[in-house]
């Protein structure tokens, strides 16, 4: 392996504000064999993961990015004077996961699944750029259709939609609920 390849990749990740994809790294280092670049990246990830440093590299939104380690969150927030980051409301989260699992989807389909008018929530999610309009459905009224965005993936630390909670994970959660229900009465 070419010496320093690992360090070059580290510097690329450092200067990139958005997560930098493996393809992008390979493209930049086109004078090196792709396999070597991949190997160097893996080495880099391993070194940063084991190093006792304040920052680390995570894979998120389809690329690699520097983040602080979660245990330093309190100090970062103190420094930035942010009490806590605002989380999504449960209505937003509900709507968002419906879009994620059923995309492409229209507003009326979302509202039907939730049994709640979701136009306001959709507006909020659009503003937060967690979902986007991707066209109109060829059905009466030509309603707008929505999809989740790259930002949605990054927000939840996912690399692709395939990483959404799977049927099995969901079934497990539902199963846990059931065991709670079946717990003997006091």
């Amino acid at each position: 392996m070419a010496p320093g390849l690992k360090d070059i990749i580290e510097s690329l990740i450092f200067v990139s504000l958005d997560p930098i994809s493996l393809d992008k790294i390979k493209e930049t280092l086109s004078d090196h064999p792709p396999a070597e670049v991949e190997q160097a990246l893996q080495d880099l990830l391993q070194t940063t993961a084991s190093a006792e440093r304040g920052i680390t590299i995570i894979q998120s939104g389809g690329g690699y990015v520097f983040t602080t380690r979660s245990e330093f969150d309190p100090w970062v927030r103190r420094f930035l004077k942010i009490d806590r980051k605002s989380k999504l409301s449960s209505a937003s989260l509900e709507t968002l996961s419906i879009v994620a699992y059923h995309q492409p989807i229209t507003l009326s389909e979302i509202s039907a699944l939730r049994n709640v008018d979701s136009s306001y929530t959709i507006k909020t999610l659009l503003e937060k750029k967690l979902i986007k309009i991707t066209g109109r459905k060829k059905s009466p009224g030509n309603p707008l259709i929505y999809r989740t965005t790259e930002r949605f993936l990054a927000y939840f630390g996912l690399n692709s939609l395939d990483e959404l909670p799977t049927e099995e994970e969901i079934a497990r959660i539902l199963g846990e609920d059931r065991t709670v229900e079946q717990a003997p009465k006091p």
Partner: protein
Amino acid sequence: MNDVPLRETETSVSYQVRLEVFEGPLDLLLFLIRKKKIDIHNIPIAVITKEYLDYLGREEQINLDREAEFVLMAALLIHIKSQLLLPREQPLAEGEDPRRFLVDQLVEFQKIKAACSILKEREEEQLSLWTREVLPPLPEPEEADLVEVSLFDLAETFFVLMKRKEAENFRVVRGKNFSVEEKMKEIIAALEKESVLDFLEYFNRQETLEEAVVSFFSLLELIKARLVMAVQERLFHTIKVWLRRESKARQ
């Protein structure tokens, strides 16, 4: 239903859940199904309808805006019950059940809820990680290529935007009033979250002409109060708005 006390005394052991905690009628239904330990695929409609109506009845008054959906679900439940009771000319075909539609909805909703709880954990985890993108590239006032805009530049941009807005064909008729004060708060809130606001984009997001005009006035007010700084990279270019750092520090 009416004998339920409106306000629980502190000594009262029985608990009361208010409707507000539920996102919607399905949420409430699922809660009741769990509470009653009912099999979701074989719901005793009479029992669940009674429980459900009890909950609605606890509300001191029906707020149509919010509770219309809850009332609609009550109607659906009663409809299903009536279908189950009414004699039929032809017996139901195998597998056909008036409850089917509701059950399908509940099962799907339950899955969504479970997915939500997983995503919520992920959100929590992600929110404790900080990447550099949350540190905004704070504008250095010394930077030569940034011009703090004058009122006239703003006005000019404003008129360009108004022309564009006017050209749009509005179909929405709304009776909502927008106050400058509220808009100012909205802009500040947006700035606190995003740190920098593309005013042109923000302006375009406004749904009506009226809202757009109000948002522009709000921006002027904020500049006047020296709470924000408006900067244009080039003339006739979009206007970027930042919170003034001094004002941030003061908070």
